[in-house]
């Protein structure tokens, strides 16, 4: 050490900035305002917002896996399908309230994720991706082979009956709207709290460098396991909401509830918004929503565009929209990290 040691610069750890306080407060206010949707908005806008809410849910869940766990799952549609079919099963077979059935199906998604995690979490990148896909395909085939009339085998099933039994179409719209908004809000708060907790620190370490994190004692598998279970439940919740929104579901084919197209949408949203950022997937979901509303929705060119744009972002703008903004302007709207600010001296 030099005798003329320069005084060590003083730092303070910063989590909240006035921008992020204002924004987080504003977002909370916005959610409260959106909760008034069924009173204030037309039926059409409510339908559109439900769609946006489940897209945000899916994007946030996929980003939790890929952005924080380094897990590229190509099989989350398996959990979407479990959520939708679980909700049908309990409401049709056991005559439970459809919204209660959706909640049960969500929990089942989380429970099913545990054994799946035990099989796939040992695998790295590509092997993990394909293994999750194989498992999702297996779920789909099993469902399509189920002769139970509530499940409907390969021809699919519908939740019209249990909903119409208890609710008018208007009530169904309102309750589904609240369920979708509530799901997004709960999952965002949960993930925000998780990422700011001690576990969150280790997750962000895993994201940045898995091997280095493991070498300083971060329990990598536990962190990934927690993410995988949350994502399983979250995607099942989204699946249940998709069911309540479109009522009829099919088990097989790329466009079905177990279809690979869901993964295409999730990858698009996360890549466009900004992988590994908290805010990115929300922006990505809005981008997809805009594309669906003003461009082709469904069909061949929609998916060609989706895949093409995703490739373009992966290669040319790998941090996505929000990651790039964050880097350039150094802003955090929803602070999940820590930043060091030098006190005094040259900034």
């Amino acid at each position, binding site marked *: 050490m030099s005798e003329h040691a320069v005084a060590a610069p003083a730092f303070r750890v910063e989590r909240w900035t006035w921008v992020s306080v204002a924004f987080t407060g504003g977002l909370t206010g916005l959610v409260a305002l959106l909760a008034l949707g069924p009173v204030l908005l037309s039926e059409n806008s409510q339908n559109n917002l439900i769609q946006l809410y489940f897209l945000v849910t899916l994007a946030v869940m996929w980003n939790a896996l890929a952005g924080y766990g380094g897990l590229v799952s190509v099989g989350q549609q398996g959990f979407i399908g479990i959520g939708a079919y679980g909700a049908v099963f309990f409401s049709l077979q056991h005559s439970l309230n459809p919204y209660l059935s959706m909640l049960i199906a969500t929990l089942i998604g989380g429970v099913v994720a545990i054994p799946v995690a035990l099989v796939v979490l*040992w695998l790295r990148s590509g092997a993990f991706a*394909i293994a999750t896909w194989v498992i999702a395909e297996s779920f789909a*085939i099993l469902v399509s082979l189920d002769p139970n009339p509530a499940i409907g085998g390969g021809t699919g099933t519908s939740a019209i009956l249990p909903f119409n039994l208890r609710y008018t179409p208007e009530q169904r719209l309102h309750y589904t709207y609240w369920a979708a908004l509530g799901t997004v809000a709960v999952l965002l708060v949960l993930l925000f709290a998780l990422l700011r907790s001690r576990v969150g620190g280790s997750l962000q370490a895993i994201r940045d460098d898995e091997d280095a994190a493991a070498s300083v004692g971060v329990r990598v598998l536990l962190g990934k396991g927690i993410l995988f279970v949350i994502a399983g439940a979250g995607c099942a919740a989204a699946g249940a909401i998709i069911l309540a929104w479109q009522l009829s579901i099919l088990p097989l084919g790329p466009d079905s509830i177990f279809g690979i197209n869901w993964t295409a949408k999730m*990858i698009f949203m996360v*890549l466009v918004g900004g992988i590994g950022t908290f805010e990115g997937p929300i922006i990505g979901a809005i981008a997809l929503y805009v594309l669906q509303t003003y461009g082709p929705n469904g069909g*061949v060119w929609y998916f*060609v565009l989706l895949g093409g744009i*995703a490739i373009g972002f992966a290669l040319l703008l790998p941090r996505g929209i929000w990651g790039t903004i964050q880097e350039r302007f150094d802003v955090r709207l929803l602070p999940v990290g820590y930043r060091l600010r030098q006190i005094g001296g040259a900034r």
Partner: protein
Amino acid sequence: MTWVSAIVHGILLGGVYALLASGLALMFGVMRIINLAHGSLALVGAYMSFLITEHLGISPYLSLAIVLPGALIVGYALQRTVLERSLRAGPLVPLLTTFGLLIVIANLLQYFFSPDVHSLDEGSIGLKAISVSNELAIPWFDVLTFGVAVVVLVGLQLVLRYTQVGRELRATAEDADTAELVGINARAVYARATAVAVATAALAGVFYGMRSGFDPNAGASELLYAFEAVVIGGMGSLWGTLVGGVVLGVAQLVGAQINNEYFALSGHLVFLVVLVARTALGVRGVGFRIRFVRRSVA
């Protein structure tokens, strides 16, 4: 079909899967990336063969004279445009870009060829079979497919072991940086590997297309079967992919023998069992490594 014939046909079906798997394994062995568009590229090969047979009135076998060189060029271009950039961007990006390709290819095929099932005509050989007993007849076409798979695998093995190109490939697979130090152009090696991988995929796609019908979404199942063959085969040597393909083929046809609908499911099940067993035995994901390189002990 009896059980014996299910097993025999399963073994022969394994040839197609080994053929599909070899390219996937080659790319993974050299670049450590799993090309999620591999099955889709195989499918493109089948559709190109379909176009050529329709327009030129030649057989799918002859169409290979156009399809295979085309596939080499496509593979080379794919590496130089998309994959090379992906590789530089970290381990997750190649998965994301190749998945994007999978979606784009499936939907473009649907646009140009409709969602209907297409098939390729395997010619008069499709009608001939070796009849072993009343219950067991082995179609000559299946034997041909299996033979092609073995020839391709042996060919790849010989090229890797004994040629300059093969030595460069092995050296780059071991350690790309060191290989560059001794004057190997790793980028060119990668491009060659992908070109060969796409050509084997296209070849597999054409044979797959002659065996059974295909639609624009068949690329996904072809990818899954190829990958399952690689994992079941274990060590990932070229012969491992053949063993894996055979086990997968047998599992599928034995499953189908129980119930027609169990064809894909029983293959998935065997794959998952192997995966769990490998984990339980301590062969972790990190150890998942495809070795084309048989290290010579000096």
